[in-house]
């Protein structure tokens, strides 16, 4: 079974630019989550999709972040415009059922300079 795939694995962009991160969950997993870890902090929840619907986006830091999951398959997380404090590792995870442990991807390391 293929795991959760994220790309790019690493992205370096300038402040003010736009970046789009992609996540392909495990096939058949309706639940898809985005988390991020900024330098020196804990991994924190961003949002949760059930199929194509946003179930909970309470962790999204501000309106510069836009997540989509068209068709309920892969998801994208766009940051526009990127700021220095957006640097960190963005993880995607998926699961079949709620409340269960997730399968995480390897993350996208975003550096905003």
């Amino acid at each position: 079974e293929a795991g959760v795939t994220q790309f790019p694995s690493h992205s370096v962009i300038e402040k003010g630019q736009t970046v789009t991160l992609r996540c392909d969950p495990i096939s058949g997993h309706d639940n898809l989550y985005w988390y991020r870890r900024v330098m020196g902090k804990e991994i924190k929840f961003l949002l949760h999709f059930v199929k194509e619907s946003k179930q909970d986006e309470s962790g999204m830091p501000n309106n510069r972040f836009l997540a989509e999951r068209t068709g309920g398959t892969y998801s994208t997380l766009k940051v526009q415009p990127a700021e220095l404090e957006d640097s960190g590792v963005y993880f995607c995870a998926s699961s079949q059922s709620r409340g269960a442990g997730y399968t995480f991807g390897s993350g996208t390391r975003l550096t905003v300079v």
Partner: protein
Amino acid sequence: QKEVEQDPGPLSVPEGAIVSLNCTYSNSAFQYFMWYRQYSRKGPELLMYTYSSGNKEDGRFTAQVDKSSKYISLFIRDSQPSDSATYLCAMSPLNNNDMRFGAGTRLTVKP
């Protein structure tokens, strides 16, 4: 005060030692408790998953949850160099997917 407290270490032990990793938390609504292992440049990998209080054993790993003390532990018996990684505790309320993570403890098992 953070919702989940975890000593970031680093923790270094000799091969074969028993390792004890711990987290405390403040939110009494947490019902699901998980331990993840994360190798460098990889995503967290689920190790143990426990619902409510009690113990759970899986091979060399034992997870304990004491809800009365708001304290969870992960024990690793006969530790191996391959166990060297960062261990993260995570927890969430019932039917809520907003997992709260600890800072992670970096463990090194020396041969």
